[in-house]
Every structure is written in C-alpha cells, then in structure tokens.
C-alpha cells in the first residue's frame, strides 16, 4: 500500500518558528518539535487540519491544488462542497456560484442537491436492512474515518458503508458528461472545491473503495479570491441564472441531513474532535448500543469551519439556514429510482474499511513489556506539567519518545534545571559559610550585558 501514510498537509520547516501551537492543539498527539520546527508522526496524523487553523506563520501547508496548478484535462467538472455556498453574501445564490465556476474555466459545475438527497435516502434504506452491531458511525468526514482506523480498530465495521454526497455527485456528473459528449470517463476530471485538506485523503486513498470518483481538490480559500470577482460579474451582467439547487443540499454544509424516518432519540450528532474522541471511547467500551446512528464531524461547526474556509463558521452556518429557507423545498429524489439504485449497490462502499494501528512500543510482546516498564520509569522522573519545551506534547508522550530513542531525557528543561541545581549545590558545598565568590558575581553580571 503505497498510500498507507498519505497526508494532505506538510510542515514547512523554513516558515516554522517552533512555537508549539500546533503540537498543543493536535488531538492525536501527532506533532513533535524537533530542531526548532514541527514534524509529523505519519502513523498518528488524521489530517483534521487543526494545526492549519492555529498556525500564524503559514508553516502548515495543505497539499490541495492551487487553481493554476489543476492542470489541463479534456473536460473539467467543479464539484463544490455545500460549504462553498455559505462563504459569500446572502444575495449570492448557489446558482450564481455554479455559473461563476463555469465562467472561471470549469467546463461544468455539479449541483449537489440530488446527491445530498439521494444519500439521505440511501442511509435510510441501509439502516432499515442493517442487523449488525450498533451504533453505526458516519463515514463522510475523512478525519473521523482515519481516527477510527488508527485509534479504534474494533469499530471499523461500524463505519457507515455508504458513499458521501461528494462522491455520488462526482460520479453522476462524470456519467452525464460522458453520455453527452462521448468522452471516456478517464478523460473527465472532477475537482472538489473543498473546505478542508482532509477530503484530499479520501480522494487519494478512499477508505472502502478502490478509487475515488474525484480526481483532485482545490481549497475554498485558494479559489475564493478568483471566484469573488467572477461572481460580481455574473451578478452585474443581469443574466438570468437558473437555480438548480434545492434546500436538501444546504444542511450538509454543517451536518448530515438524516432521514426523517430515523427517530431523533436514536441518533446523536457530535462535533469537534475532543467530543468525537469521547463518544468513540464510549462506543468502544460497549456503551451507546441503543443508538442506531451517530454522526461525527472533526470540526466544531461541521464543514463550514474547515481549515480552508474563509468565512466565520457561525456566519456561514446562519447563511446555510437562510439559504435553506429561500431555496425550493421539493425532494429532488425520485423514490422508485432511488430504491432501484440502492438495490444495485450504487450508494455502497465496496471494500471493508481497513485498520491502521500506529506503530506499537515493541514488535513483540516481550520488547513491548520491557519498553513499557522503561516508559513508566522515565515518566516517574518527569514533572508532569506538560510544558512542551522538550518538543513532545505531554510528559507521557515524551517518556515514550525517550524509550523509542526519538528524544533524549536531557531535553526536559525541568529535569535539567534540577540537575544543574544539584551540581551547583555540590560545587557550593565546600564553600559553605564563605561569602559568595567573585566568580558567581561576575556570571550574574554578564547576564545583564
């Protein structure tokens, strides 16, 4: 598996000041500061992008394509995240945004409402037939999927094996273009306009699938400066823009639109990785079995608060609700057609979700026991204040890093200070009773100049 440790972000050592902001916020303790700059532990990173959000030096670089770097293909389709619709003023309709995407070099822009509505129905049909262990956990946020694969391997079979609206939208758009133009599918390129780098993970290496239907991703924040003037042009041209979206798609900007047949008390919606971790922990302990479905989002306000959005997430969420009210309410999905597609497996992932346990302390149990003993011995000496100055996020993580040979115990500034004080005390002992020597006075004086 060449892509086993593929990540959608990288750290730029030349821009990083080693300030530790990213290391402190990382929910899976996947960042260390080494030689003054941040490095990633690839087997632990879940691509959530919290590091991008806190970095003030632009040292965490998303690997999404720049608009200029998308390359040239016979036919390019833009597949917007519903979060894109929430990034502009309220008078900018989804229809205007889709038109602006077409005017900015894309051959087509896919509307989302049908795929969003279809996936809601598909969840309903899947749950009505599902007899396995509960609760099922949503799989549309790639960071949540990676978190389960890395930290909760026993729960991978509870990840919902239903395709996301973005995948369905890309597939349907490609099929339509291929039918209309006669182009083979592999010459049609689908570009996701993404609110976060994590979606790139599911494009490069889609869990539960041989390949994603999406080919590349461009960040909303990268496209925004180019799209905004084109949107103004569309608005001022006075041309009538058709509105192809319905209310069904907008809810997906911050949550999953769950089937109305699913009783609210059988579901739970969890936002933000610290909360997701607690819920997954409870499920792992065998609790919460009475719930049917739990939707989990890595970001606190869902996709509108992704690391590559530009608008305040609360404003964006309010706009999504307003747009939902102003757009047509009709269900864009024909139930009979949908049941037939469901029966053909069109909304199912095709492979089991893999597990990705991080590297353990030892390859065999005896080594692991020895290293864990050593880890506890090191940890017992540490101050337990999690200051981070050693370059590890907590004293516990530092103890493990020492045992694995990735850090030196001397990097702990508190231990160093204690050692220096002991040395100083030993040196001073023979001088006890005499006034402070000239050497020490000179040294403190030097510090001032």
């Amino acid at each position, binding site marked *: 598996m060449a892509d086993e440790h593929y990540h959608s972000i990288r750290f730029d050592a030349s821009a990083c000041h080693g300030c530790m902001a990213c290391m402190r916020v990382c929910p899976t303790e996947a960042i260390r500061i080494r030689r003054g700059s941040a490095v990633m532990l690839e087997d632990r990173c879940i691509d959530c992008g919290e590091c991008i959000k806190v970095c003030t030096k632009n040292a965490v670089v998303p690997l999404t394509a720049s608009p200029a770097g998308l390359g040239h293909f016979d036919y390019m389709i833009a597949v917007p995240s519903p979060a894109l619709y929430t990034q502009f003023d309220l008078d900018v309709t989804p229809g205007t945004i889709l038109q602006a995407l077409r005017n900015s070099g894309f051959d087509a822009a896919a509307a989302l409402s049908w795929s969003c509505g279809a996936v809601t129905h598909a969840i309903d049909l899947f749950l009505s037939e599902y007899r396995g262990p509960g609760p099922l956990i949503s799989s549309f946020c790639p960071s949540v999927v990676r978190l389960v694969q890395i930290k909760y391997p026993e729960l991978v079979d509870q990840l919902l094996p239903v395709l996301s609206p973005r995948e369905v939208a890309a597939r349907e758009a490609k099929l339509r273009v291929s039918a209309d133009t006669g182009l083979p599918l592999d010459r049609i390129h689908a570009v996701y306009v993404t609110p976060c780098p994590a979606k790139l993970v599911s494009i490069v290496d889609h869990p539960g699938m041989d390949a994603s239907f999406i080919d590349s991703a461009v960040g909303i924040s990268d496209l925004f400066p180019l799209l905004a003037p084109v949107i103004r042009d569309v608005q001022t041209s006075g041309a009538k823009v058709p509105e192809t979206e319905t209310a069904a798609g907008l809810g997906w900007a911050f949550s999953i639109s769950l089937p109305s047949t699913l009783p609210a008390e059988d579901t739970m919606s969890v936002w933000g990785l610290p909360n997701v971790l607690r819920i997954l922990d409870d499920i792992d302990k065998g609790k919460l079995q009475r719930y049917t479905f739990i939707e989990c989002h890595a970001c606190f306000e869902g996709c509108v608060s992704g690391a590559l959005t530009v608008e305040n997430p609360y404003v964006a969420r309010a706009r999504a609700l307003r747009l939902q009210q102003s757009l047509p309410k009709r269900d864009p999905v024909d139930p009979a057609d949908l049941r037939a597609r469901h029966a053909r497996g069109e909304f199912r992932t095709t492979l089991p979700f893999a597990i990705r346990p991080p590297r353990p302390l030892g390859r065999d149990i005896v080594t692991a026991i020895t290293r*864990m003993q050593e880890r506890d011995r090191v940890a017992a000496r540490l101050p337990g204040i999690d200051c981070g100055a050693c370059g590890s996020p907590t004293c516990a993580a530092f103890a493990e890093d020492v045992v694995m040979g990735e850090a030196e115990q001397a990097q702990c500034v508190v231990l160093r200070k204690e050692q220096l004080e002991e040395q100083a005390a030993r040196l001073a002992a023979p001088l006890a009773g005499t006034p402070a020597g000239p050497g020490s006075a000179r040294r403190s004086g030097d510090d001032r100049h």
Partner: protein
Amino acid sequence: MTDAEFVRAYEIAGADFTNAGRASTGIKETLKNMGLPSALIRRVAIAAYEAEMNTVMYARRGTMTLRVTPEDVTIDVRDEGPGIPDITLAMQEGYSTATPEMREMGFGAGMGLPNIRRNTDELVITSEVNRGTALMMTVHVS
C-alpha cells in the same frame, strides 16, 4: 518462558463520576501501545470498565492493578466498600442493587459482573461484607 512482566496500578476514588472510566481508558491505551491484538484489548477494556464503575458506584476507594506478561493480561481490582453478600446472586444477569441515581446514568441493568465474566478467561471474586471486594480478572494473550 520469560519472566517479563509489566505492572501498573491505578487509584479509583468512590463516587468520583467526573473521573470515572479514566483507569480503564488508561489500561486500554497502554495495551494498544504495547501492540496487543485489538479483540483482546476490547475484552479487557470492557471488563476493566465494568469493574471500575462498580468501584466508583459502590465503594469508598479502590485500586486497579494491570499486569501484562507474554501469556496473560491480569487486572486485579480491590476496593474498600460494602462487599457483596451473595456472589452467586450478583453473578446472575439482571440482578442489580443499583440506586435510582445509578440507573439514571445508564447503569443498573444487572449486567456488570456477567459482562466481566463473559469478557474474561478467568475470574475470581472474593468479598467480605462491610470490608470490600476483590476481583482477579485474567485474559489469555495467546
């Protein structure tokens, strides 16, 4: 065989519901970190959690000691508490002495000890009324 053994003890405070579950989560993380099979970890984690919650709900205080050898994972829970007057009765599914408050929190289905028995290979319970209870839970590694 080898005499390699890892031992770590956790303190459990009775009625401390804010921190309840920390010890069993710590045990789970430790076993994951040691690279033990995830199915085994899940059994140990569920048994440890049930035992920890019993201590939090009924006892004044307790200790939970994790012991890992190449052959076994053992968890030894000793509490200072009311004890179990009739262990055979307590092992029956559905039997519970949980208070309404405990039931409010989702406990009291009478599945605690049966759940522990189901997830362990060996279980030894000793108890003395008004003194405390000791559980020795073992799951074989291979």
